[in-house]
């Protein structure tokens, strides 16, 4: 199959690739880089790099407290990042967009403040929190900590053999005692796209709040926080062609206003007296200390870049590449894909096993051919355990991935088989 025959690829893919300077470099002694680890972190377009450099070179100052020209420029750029993220998410209000360190911190923010909340949101003894077996550790461990500390119970949806959430016991899991239902939109290991709206509807029927981990969804699906049905949506900057060090928590205004502060410090207060303090309104209530300023500026440029190309177009590209990869991977003898085999049901991360070769060894051989993939448990040990495997190899594509790169992966896997002398 040649590139031109693949329906859905981004037009002018070479132009897009030229936006990402790192894709020009070589590795392994002169081989072109084949970067298939975008679910781990995405590469950055020149516009994000330039925007961040420009901010540091020309506008750097602290935000919201420096009474000078640079302070005003920096504040405007930082808050401009918030506006851009709000637009990217189709959020009803920019104040509902909270900047955190990453998606993990955003999830920990929610889990902790639910324990500290007064009133109906409070998670305490006898309450139930529901997560799923296919989560990244960052959407399991904060809820284990919450339920262990409060005496609440953690329950979870299992996974079917074909890699979907097992909703057979949904009535048992989502009951009158359920306070929180949290799930990933797109699995980082299986690639599965979950039926968020349906689960959210069921959760809301019993008055539970819905927390959605969009870390793998935000890079590749059009996100509309209202339409998706969740009360809280989190994602991380570095997977949406933005910088590391910044994550996003979107929450419904009424919910965020009812939650107590997470971290205390500068910027999150209204006034401080030794006897006690009052707190700023959202979003600043949840942003203690100097925020990731240049990261927010870079993230704003990143989501603008994606929106300019169009999330629908990026999604079509991912589906075309994913379908092509699924087809190619299945030609490799002894290779088993973990997760749905229909590209329409999944995102662009494909985990697989190669019979007779450990994932580390697969990744090592691929690396010697310039192909970068991830090997290990991908921070999803329970999902691996569900399929009786300890680790897997994962390729993950993005808007700059070409069919030729998938061919390089498949060739590399054939080479891996021969390297380890598999018949």
């Amino acid at each position, binding site marked *: 199959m040649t590139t031109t025959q693949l329906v859905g690829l981004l037009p002018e893919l070479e132009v897009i690739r030229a936006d990402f300077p790192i894709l020009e470099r070589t590795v392994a002694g002169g081989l072109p880089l084949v970067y298939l680890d975008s679910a781990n972190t995405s590469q950055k377009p020149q516009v994000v790099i330039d925007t961040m450099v420009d901010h540091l070179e020309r506008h750097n100052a602290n935000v919201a407290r420096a009474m000078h020209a640079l302070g005003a420029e920096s504040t405007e750029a930082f808050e401009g990042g918030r506006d851009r993220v709000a637009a990217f998410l189709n959020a009803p209000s920019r104040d509902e967009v909270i900047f955190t360190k990453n998606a993990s911190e955003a999830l920990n923010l929610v889990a902790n403040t639910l324990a500290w909340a007064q009133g109906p949101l409070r998670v305490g003894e006898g309450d139930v929190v529901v997560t799923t077996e296919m989560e990244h550790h960052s959407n399991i461990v904060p809820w284990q900590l919450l339920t262990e500390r409060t005496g609440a119970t953690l329950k979870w949806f299992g996974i079917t053999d074909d890699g979907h959430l097992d909703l057979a016991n949904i009535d048992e899991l989502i009951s009158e005692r359920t306070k929180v239902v949290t799930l990933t939109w797109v699995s980082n290991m299986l690639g599965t796209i979950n039926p968020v709206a349906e689960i959210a509807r069921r959760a809301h029927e019993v008055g539970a709040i819905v927390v959605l981990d969009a870390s793998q969804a935000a890079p590749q699906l059009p996100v509309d926080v209202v339409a998706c049905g969740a009360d809280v949506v989190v994602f991380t900057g570095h997977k949406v062609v933005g910088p590391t060090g910044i994550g996003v928590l979107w929450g419904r205004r009424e919910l965020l206003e009812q939650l107590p502060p997470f971290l205390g410090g500068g910027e999150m207060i209204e006034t401080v007296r030794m006897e006690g303090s009052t707190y700023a309104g959202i979003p600043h209530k949840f942003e203690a200390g100097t925020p990731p300023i240049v990261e927010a500026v870079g993230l704003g440029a990143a989501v603008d870049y994606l929106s300019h190309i169009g999330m629908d177009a990026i999604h079509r590209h991912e589906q075309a590449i994913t379908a092509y990869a699924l087809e190619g991977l299945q030609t490799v003898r002894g290779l088993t894909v973990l997760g749905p085999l229909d590209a329409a049901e999944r995102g662009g991360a494909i985990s697989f096993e190669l019979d007779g070769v*450990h994932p580390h060894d697969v990744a090592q051989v691929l*690396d010697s051919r310039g192909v970068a993939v991830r090997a290990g448990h991908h921070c999803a040990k329970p999902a691996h355990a569900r399929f009786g495997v300890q680790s897997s190899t994962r390729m993950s594509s993005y808007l700059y991935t070409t069919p030729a790169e998938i061919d390089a992966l498949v060739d590399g896997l054939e080479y891996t088989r021969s390297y380890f002398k598999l018949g």
Partner: protein
Amino acid sequence: MMSHELDSLYQDIILDHAKRRLNAGLREPFEAEVHHVNPTCGDEVTLRLHLEGDVIRDISYDNQGCSISSASASVMTELLIGKTVAEAKPIHDAFLEMMRGKGQVEPDEDVLEDAIAFAGAAKLTARIKCALLSWMAYQDALVRAQEESDV
């Protein structure tokens, strides 16, 4: 990494040990059993140590891991079983020194025998822990077995 580095990592000795996994399986008797995990990749080893006086009578293990970690367990048991604890110590020390030497330590083949094949892995930050997993498990098991005998 380049392809010649690949060959220096996956030397025949390593591929051979990874396939044969000498002394694999968990056996009785034993004085100490430990379970070690490499949290970054999830590789695991359960290792049992059986001492008779000062002699290492048996090291048995069950592991899940890459060829480097499997081969390393195999080589280690081949080298250490039958030796006294005192004879094993310089071998263990030399292996740790090589693996922690960032590829700069010239290994002594007289001491390390087959284990010098891991010199290639020592140059790769991501693989050092793979090679060290079972050796650290042995060290832990030894401490526990000796504590046990002191009681």
